[in-house]
Protein backbone atom coordinates (compact mmCIF):
# COMPACT_ATOMS: atom_id res chain seq x y z
CA UNK A 1 0.00 0.00 0.00
CA UNK A 2 1.50 3.32 -1.10
CA UNK A 3 0.05 6.81 -0.62
CA UNK A 4 0.84 9.73 -2.91
CA UNK A 5 0.66 13.17 -1.27
CA UNK A 6 0.41 16.10 -3.67
CA UNK A 7 2.56 19.18 -3.23
CA UNK A 8 1.29 22.40 -4.81
CA UNK A 9 3.02 25.76 -4.61
CA UNK A 10 1.47 27.07 -1.39
CA UNK A 11 0.80 23.68 0.23
CA UNK A 12 1.87 23.69 3.87
CA UNK A 13 0.60 20.41 5.35
CA UNK A 14 2.04 17.93 2.87
CA UNK A 15 4.89 16.85 5.15
CA UNK A 16 2.55 16.21 8.10
CA UNK A 17 0.28 14.27 5.74
CA UNK A 18 3.26 12.28 4.44
CA UNK A 19 4.33 11.43 8.00
CA UNK A 20 0.78 10.46 8.96
CA UNK A 21 0.56 8.14 5.94
CA UNK A 22 3.95 6.60 6.75
CA UNK A 23 2.73 5.50 10.17
CA UNK A 24 0.51 3.01 8.36
CA UNK A 25 1.94 2.47 4.86
CA UNK A 26 4.50 3.71 2.33
CA UNK A 27 4.09 7.24 1.04
CA UNK A 28 5.72 9.66 -1.37
CA UNK A 29 5.24 13.23 -2.53
CA UNK A 30 3.76 13.95 -5.96
CA UNK A 31 4.50 17.24 -7.72
CA UNK A 32 1.63 19.40 -8.96
CA UNK A 33 3.25 19.85 -12.38
CA UNK A 34 3.51 16.10 -13.08
CA UNK A 35 0.72 14.13 -14.66
CA UNK A 36 2.10 10.82 -13.48
CA UNK A 37 0.67 9.37 -10.24
CA UNK A 38 3.51 6.79 -10.15
CA UNK A 39 1.19 3.88 -9.46
CA UNK A 40 0.19 4.96 -5.95
CA UNK A 41 -2.79 3.19 -4.38
CA UNK A 42 -4.36 6.29 -2.80
CA UNK A 43 -3.97 10.04 -3.27
CA UNK A 44 -3.95 12.68 -0.52
CA UNK A 45 -4.63 16.30 -1.49
CA UNK A 46 -3.22 18.17 1.51
CA UNK A 47 -3.93 21.45 3.27
CA UNK A 48 -2.41 24.83 2.66
CA UNK A 49 -3.01 27.66 0.24
CA UNK A 50 -2.47 26.13 -3.18
CA UNK A 51 -1.54 28.75 -5.79
CA UNK A 52 -2.11 31.36 -3.10
CA UNK A 53 -5.82 30.54 -3.08
CA UNK A 54 -6.11 33.30 -5.67
CA UNK A 55 -9.55 33.90 -7.20
CA UNK A 56 -11.28 31.37 -4.87
CA UNK A 57 -9.95 28.70 -2.54
CA UNK A 58 -8.89 25.68 -4.60
CA UNK A 59 -9.95 27.22 -7.92
CA UNK A 60 -6.56 27.34 -9.65
CA UNK A 61 -5.12 24.11 -8.22
CA UNK A 62 -8.04 22.23 -9.72
CA UNK A 63 -6.56 22.86 -13.20
CA UNK A 64 -3.00 21.75 -12.39
CA UNK A 65 -1.60 18.84 -14.43
CA UNK A 66 -1.58 16.44 -11.47
CA UNK A 67 -5.23 17.17 -10.71
CA UNK A 68 -6.27 16.11 -14.20
CA UNK A 69 -4.79 12.70 -13.31
CA UNK A 70 -6.33 12.70 -9.82
CA UNK A 71 -9.78 13.44 -11.27
CA UNK A 72 -9.37 10.50 -13.64
CA UNK A 73 -8.07 8.29 -10.78
CA UNK A 74 -11.03 9.26 -8.57
CA UNK A 75 -13.59 8.71 -11.31
CA UNK A 76 -12.19 5.22 -11.84
CA UNK A 77 -12.72 4.39 -8.17
CA UNK A 78 -9.28 5.17 -6.75
CA UNK A 79 -9.31 6.42 -3.15
CA UNK A 80 -8.76 10.19 -2.85
CA UNK A 81 -8.56 12.02 0.48
CA UNK A 82 -8.78 15.83 0.52
CA UNK A 83 -7.87 17.66 3.70
CA UNK A 84 -8.81 21.32 4.24
CA UNK A 85 -7.49 23.08 1.11
CA UNK A 86 -7.50 19.63 -0.50
CA UNK A 87 -11.22 19.34 0.27
CA UNK A 88 -11.75 22.75 -1.34
CA UNK A 89 -9.79 21.61 -4.42
CA UNK A 90 -11.87 18.40 -4.73
CA UNK A 91 -15.11 20.44 -4.57
CA UNK A 92 -13.82 22.81 -7.25
CA UNK A 93 -12.82 19.78 -9.33
CA UNK A 94 -16.36 18.41 -9.14
CA UNK A 95 -15.24 15.19 -7.42
CA UNK A 96 -17.20 16.21 -4.32
CA UNK A 97 -20.49 18.10 -4.03
CA UNK A 98 -20.83 21.58 -2.56
CA UNK A 99 -18.36 24.38 -1.86
CA UNK A 100 -16.47 25.87 1.07
CA UNK A 101 -17.34 29.49 1.89
CA UNK A 102 -15.62 31.95 4.20
CA UNK A 103 -16.34 31.19 7.88
CA UNK A 104 -19.59 32.81 9.00
CA UNK A 105 -17.70 34.71 11.73
CA UNK A 106 -15.14 36.04 9.20
CA UNK A 107 -12.24 34.88 11.35
CA UNK A 108 -9.57 32.29 10.72
CA UNK A 109 -10.11 29.55 13.32
CA UNK A 110 -7.45 27.18 14.70
CA UNK A 111 -8.76 24.85 17.41
CA UNK A 112 -9.05 21.25 18.48
CA UNK A 113 -12.65 20.18 18.33
CA UNK A 114 -14.92 17.14 18.38
CA UNK A 115 -16.30 15.40 15.32
CA UNK A 116 -18.98 12.73 15.17
CA UNK A 117 -18.61 9.82 12.79
CA UNK A 118 -21.86 9.64 10.83
CA UNK A 119 -20.93 7.01 8.23
CA UNK A 120 -18.44 4.36 9.38
CA UNK A 121 -18.76 2.19 6.28
CA UNK A 122 -16.49 4.25 3.99
CA UNK A 123 -12.90 3.22 3.13
CA UNK A 124 -11.80 6.24 5.21
CA UNK A 125 -13.77 5.56 8.41
CA UNK A 126 -14.34 1.81 8.67
CA UNK A 127 -12.03 1.58 11.71
CA UNK A 128 -14.57 3.73 13.60
CA UNK A 129 -18.16 3.08 14.62
CA UNK A 130 -21.04 5.40 13.80
CA UNK A 131 -21.42 7.82 16.69
CA UNK A 132 -17.74 7.73 17.69
CA UNK A 133 -16.35 11.15 18.62
CA UNK A 134 -12.93 12.13 17.27
CA UNK A 135 -10.81 14.99 18.57
CA UNK A 136 -9.13 16.58 15.55
CA UNK A 137 -8.01 20.20 14.96
CA UNK A 138 -9.35 22.64 12.41
CA UNK A 139 -7.42 25.62 11.00
CA UNK A 140 -9.08 27.51 8.20
CA UNK A 141 -10.64 30.76 7.08
CA UNK A 142 -13.00 29.27 4.51
CA UNK A 143 -14.52 26.09 5.92
CA UNK A 144 -18.22 26.76 5.84
CA UNK A 145 -19.66 23.82 3.92
CA UNK A 146 -22.44 24.87 1.59
CA UNK A 147 -24.66 23.04 -0.86
CA UNK A 148 -28.23 23.75 -1.93
CA UNK A 149 -30.90 22.20 0.32
CA UNK A 150 -31.97 19.57 -2.21
CA UNK A 151 -28.33 18.52 -2.69
CA UNK A 152 -27.90 18.23 1.09
CA UNK A 153 -31.01 16.05 1.32
CA UNK A 154 -29.66 13.77 -1.41
CA UNK A 155 -26.26 13.56 0.29
CA UNK A 156 -27.79 12.59 3.63
CA UNK A 157 -29.98 9.96 1.97
CA UNK A 158 -26.93 8.44 0.22
CA UNK A 159 -24.71 8.39 3.32
CA UNK A 160 -22.38 11.03 1.88
CA UNK A 161 -22.26 13.01 5.12
CA UNK A 162 -19.36 11.15 6.74
CA UNK A 163 -18.41 13.47 9.62
CA UNK A 164 -20.27 16.19 11.49
CA UNK A 165 -19.08 18.74 14.02
CA UNK A 166 -20.28 17.63 17.47
CA UNK A 167 -22.97 19.83 19.06
CA UNK A 168 -21.41 23.20 19.91
CA UNK A 169 -18.33 22.51 17.76
CA UNK A 170 -19.51 23.91 14.43
CA UNK A 171 -17.49 27.12 14.54
CA UNK A 172 -17.46 27.99 10.83
CA UNK A 173 -21.23 27.92 10.16
CA UNK A 174 -21.25 24.79 7.98
CA UNK A 175 -24.72 23.80 6.86
CA UNK A 176 -26.11 20.85 8.86
CA UNK A 177 -22.84 20.79 10.87
CA UNK A 178 -21.12 18.99 7.99
CA UNK A 179 -17.37 18.49 8.48
CA UNK A 180 -16.58 15.76 5.94
CA UNK A 181 -18.32 14.40 2.86
CA UNK A 182 -17.82 11.68 0.27
CA UNK A 183 -18.90 11.22 -3.33
CA UNK A 184 -21.88 8.88 -3.92
CA UNK A 185 -19.51 5.95 -4.63
CA UNK A 186 -17.62 6.57 -1.35
CA UNK A 187 -14.08 6.50 -2.81
CA UNK A 188 -13.49 10.27 -2.64
CA UNK A 189 -13.61 11.92 0.78
CA UNK A 190 -12.94 15.49 1.87
CA UNK A 191 -12.90 17.06 5.31
CA UNK A 192 -11.99 20.46 6.73
CA UNK A 193 -10.40 19.16 9.98
CA UNK A 194 -6.79 17.97 9.86
CA UNK A 195 -6.41 14.28 10.76
CA UNK A 196 -2.69 14.46 9.82
CA UNK A 197 -2.15 16.84 12.75
CA UNK A 198 -3.67 14.35 15.17
CA UNK A 199 -1.64 11.15 14.84
CA UNK A 200 0.72 11.53 17.81
CA UNK A 201 -0.12 11.89 21.51
CA UNK A 202 2.60 14.57 21.62
CA UNK A 203 0.22 16.96 19.84
CA UNK A 204 -2.83 16.11 21.90
CA UNK A 205 -4.73 13.42 20.00
CA UNK A 206 -4.17 10.30 17.92
CA UNK A 207 -7.73 10.19 16.60
CA UNK A 208 -6.76 11.37 13.12
CA UNK A 209 -4.73 8.19 12.64
CA UNK A 210 -7.98 6.30 12.24
CA UNK A 211 -8.55 7.87 8.82
CA UNK A 212 -5.12 6.81 7.51
CA UNK A 213 -5.33 3.39 9.21
CA UNK A 214 -8.73 2.80 7.61
CA UNK A 215 -7.38 3.63 4.14
CA UNK A 216 -4.25 1.53 4.66
CA UNK A 217 -6.28 -1.29 6.25
CA UNK A 218 -3.84 -1.37 9.13
CA UNK A 219 -4.48 -1.49 12.91
CA UNK A 220 -5.24 1.98 14.29
CA UNK A 221 -2.43 1.83 16.84
CA UNK A 222 0.36 1.40 14.29
Amino acid sequence: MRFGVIRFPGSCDEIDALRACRRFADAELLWHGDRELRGVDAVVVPGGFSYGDYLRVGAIARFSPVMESVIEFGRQGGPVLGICNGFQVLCEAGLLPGALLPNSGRRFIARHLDLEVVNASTPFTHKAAAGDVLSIPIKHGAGRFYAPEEVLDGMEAQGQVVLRYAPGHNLNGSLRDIAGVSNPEGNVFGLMPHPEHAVDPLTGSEDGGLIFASLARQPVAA
Partner: protein
Amino acid sequence: MARVRVLIRPKEGILDPQGQAVERALPALGFEGVANVHVGRMVELDAEDPARVPEMCERLLANPLIEDYEVLQ
Protein backbone atom coordinates in the same frame (compact mmCIF):
# COMPACT_ATOMS: atom_id res chain seq x y z
CA MET B 1 -8.82 43.12 -28.19
CA ALA B 2 -11.85 44.21 -26.24
CA ARG B 3 -11.78 45.28 -22.63
CA VAL B 4 -14.23 43.19 -20.62
CA ARG B 5 -15.22 43.52 -16.98
CA VAL B 6 -16.76 40.64 -15.08
CA LEU B 7 -18.62 41.31 -11.82
CA ILE B 8 -18.85 38.33 -9.50
CA ARG B 9 -21.03 38.37 -6.41
CA PRO B 10 -22.32 35.83 -3.88
CA LYS B 11 -25.58 34.25 -4.99
CA GLU B 12 -28.67 35.72 -3.42
CA GLY B 13 -29.57 33.96 -0.20
CA ILE B 14 -26.00 32.85 0.55
CA LEU B 15 -24.62 34.31 3.76
CA ASP B 16 -22.20 37.12 2.89
CA PRO B 17 -20.21 37.87 6.06
CA GLN B 18 -18.06 40.49 4.30
CA GLY B 19 -21.12 42.39 3.11
CA GLN B 20 -22.64 42.19 6.60
CA ALA B 21 -19.47 43.55 8.20
CA VAL B 22 -19.39 46.51 5.79
CA GLU B 23 -23.11 47.12 6.34
CA ARG B 24 -22.56 47.29 10.08
CA ALA B 25 -19.52 49.55 9.74
CA LEU B 26 -21.22 52.24 7.64
CA PRO B 27 -23.61 53.58 10.33
CA ALA B 28 -20.64 53.90 12.68
CA LEU B 29 -19.29 56.54 10.26
CA GLY B 30 -22.63 58.31 10.06
CA PHE B 31 -23.81 56.69 6.81
CA GLU B 32 -27.34 55.74 7.83
CA GLY B 33 -29.95 54.28 5.53
CA VAL B 34 -27.81 51.65 3.79
CA ALA B 35 -29.06 48.09 3.34
CA ASN B 36 -28.31 44.90 1.38
CA VAL B 37 -24.54 45.45 1.13
CA HIS B 38 -22.77 42.70 -0.80
CA VAL B 39 -19.07 42.38 -1.46
CA GLY B 40 -17.89 40.56 -4.56
CA ARG B 41 -14.98 40.97 -6.92
CA MET B 42 -14.27 42.31 -10.37
CA VAL B 43 -12.11 40.66 -13.02
CA GLU B 44 -10.91 42.94 -15.81
CA LEU B 45 -9.41 41.49 -18.96
CA ASP B 46 -8.67 42.16 -22.62
CA ALA B 47 -10.10 39.40 -24.80
CA GLU B 48 -9.65 38.72 -28.50
CA ASP B 49 -12.99 36.93 -28.49
CA PRO B 50 -15.27 38.45 -25.82
CA ALA B 51 -17.96 35.92 -26.74
CA ARG B 52 -15.90 33.34 -24.86
CA VAL B 53 -15.95 35.25 -21.57
CA PRO B 54 -19.17 33.62 -20.25
CA GLU B 55 -17.51 30.21 -20.73
CA MET B 56 -14.45 31.48 -18.83
CA CYS B 57 -16.82 32.51 -16.03
CA GLU B 58 -18.51 29.13 -15.91
CA ARG B 59 -15.24 27.20 -15.83
CA LEU B 60 -12.91 29.36 -13.76
CA LEU B 61 -13.72 32.98 -12.95
CA ALA B 62 -16.86 32.15 -10.94
CA ASN B 63 -18.20 29.10 -9.15
CA PRO B 64 -21.80 28.95 -10.42
CA LEU B 65 -22.87 26.98 -7.34
CA ILE B 66 -22.22 29.92 -5.02
CA GLU B 67 -21.68 32.97 -7.25
CA ASP B 68 -23.50 34.95 -9.92
CA TYR B 69 -21.56 36.76 -12.61
CA GLU B 70 -22.30 39.61 -14.93
CA VAL B 71 -20.22 40.37 -18.03
CA LEU B 72 -19.87 44.08 -18.87
CA GLN B 73 -18.29 45.29 -22.11
